């Protein structure tokens, strides 16, 4: 029997193999949904019986997912978080861009440095350079430059931030500070400029 291992196929497979980082809110939703089911059914036997009768999610689980979806909907406008998983297969580049997801949160053993990896996304077609600046990188434009996908794509980067509330913005073309249109505004009482809020959660 033929087993396809020629170079082209291998390269194709490699391009698909990059592991996405865990979306912490997604894993949290799974746990919440599971807890909800535990709370409802006193015994696992009952759950199994239920699953066999109705192979789709129960109304309560659906409600939880819907509630969670609300959270997702709101937070999807903000910066995206990811947490590096502990699997050795994860791509090691720190500039790993991520799909629009949701809020930060959960743990997974992140031993590669301090804080939680957070991905940022910003649309700026005509910009020549964009950087993330915030309290997690001392507002230093040189520490987190962003990269773009193709000539028209969004700018992205990944930064490490410790659990808690953070304030940040994007520095466009080295000089203009722009708040993240997808995130809640942070009123700046000290300097007046607008910035954005990032909530990073913790194990």
């Amino acid at each position, binding site marked *: 029997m033929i087993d396809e291992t020629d170079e082209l196929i291998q390269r194709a497979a490699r391009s698909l193999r990059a592991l996405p980082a865990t979306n912490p809110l997604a894993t949290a939703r799974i746990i919440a949904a599971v807890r909800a089911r535990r709370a409802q059914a006193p015994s696992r036997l009952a759950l199994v019986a239920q699953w066999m009768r109705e192979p789709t999610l129960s109304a309560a689980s659906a409600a939880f997912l819907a509630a969670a979806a609300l959270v997702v909907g709101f937070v999807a406008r903000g910066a995206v978080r990811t947490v590096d998983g502990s699997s050795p297969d994860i791509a090691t580049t720190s500039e790993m861009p991520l799909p629009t997801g949701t809020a930060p949160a959960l743990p997974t053993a992140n031993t590669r440095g301090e804080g939680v990896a957070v991905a940022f996304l910003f649309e700026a077609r005509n910009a020549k350079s964009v950087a993330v600046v915030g*309290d997690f990188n*001392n507002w230093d434009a040189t520490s987190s430059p962003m990269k773009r996908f193709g000539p028209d794509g969004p700018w992205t980067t990944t930064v490490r931030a410790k659990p808690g509330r953070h304030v940040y913005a994007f520095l466009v073309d080295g000089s203009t500070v722009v708040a993240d249109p997808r995130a809640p505004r942070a009123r700046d009482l000290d*300097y007046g400029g607008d910035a954005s809020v990032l909530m990073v959660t913790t194990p």
Partner: protein
Amino acid sequence: MTSFRRLTFAVVLLAVATAARAAAQDYSRLALIRDDVTRNVVRGLLGGAFSRGVPIDPLMAKALEGVAKKASTTAIRDAMNALEKRMRKAQDLLGKDASVDELAAGADALSVGVSEKTLTRMRRAAPRRSIALELGVLTELVARGVGPSKASEMVLSLMARNATGVQLTALSNDVQGDVAAGLNPEVALTLRGKGIMSLLPPPPSTNTLQPRPK
């Protein structure tokens, strides 16, 4: 597997703590301030803070934020002074062992009107782990329009019920979204807070539940 995970968390916490302490005394970023006058003023303020036992890192960040936003030297000086004052107050309230992140978060909370008493109560509710996240959530709720005392009561109640970091973060995100959609902030808080309470597991007598995470 579980003990490996505990070990890993311990390593992570240690790494975070160590790095935080080291960064707290990092002057090298002064070089990022190109204007000589501003840089000297900032250096002086940092030196003063250092001598008073206040971690410099958040102050440096505050200065650099001003630089990024093209603020005047005076504005930067005022901002740093105000922050240092709040951080010293946070130090009094949160204790000598409070981490830099806690102090910075405590200072933020104070700046939006959270009471000193609340910080004391939060510390008491969680004496041995960092409450930087809880402080951040509280700050954010108030920033979205919830009255400081209502927000404080909610966060303290959730802490007492062992709400997770994820849940607390979700609370502030939810409330933010609700407010953005036009809902009254305190109504939103009550609603979302109730939602989380209903998800909180029963007291630890029955299950092997996860201990309250940091």
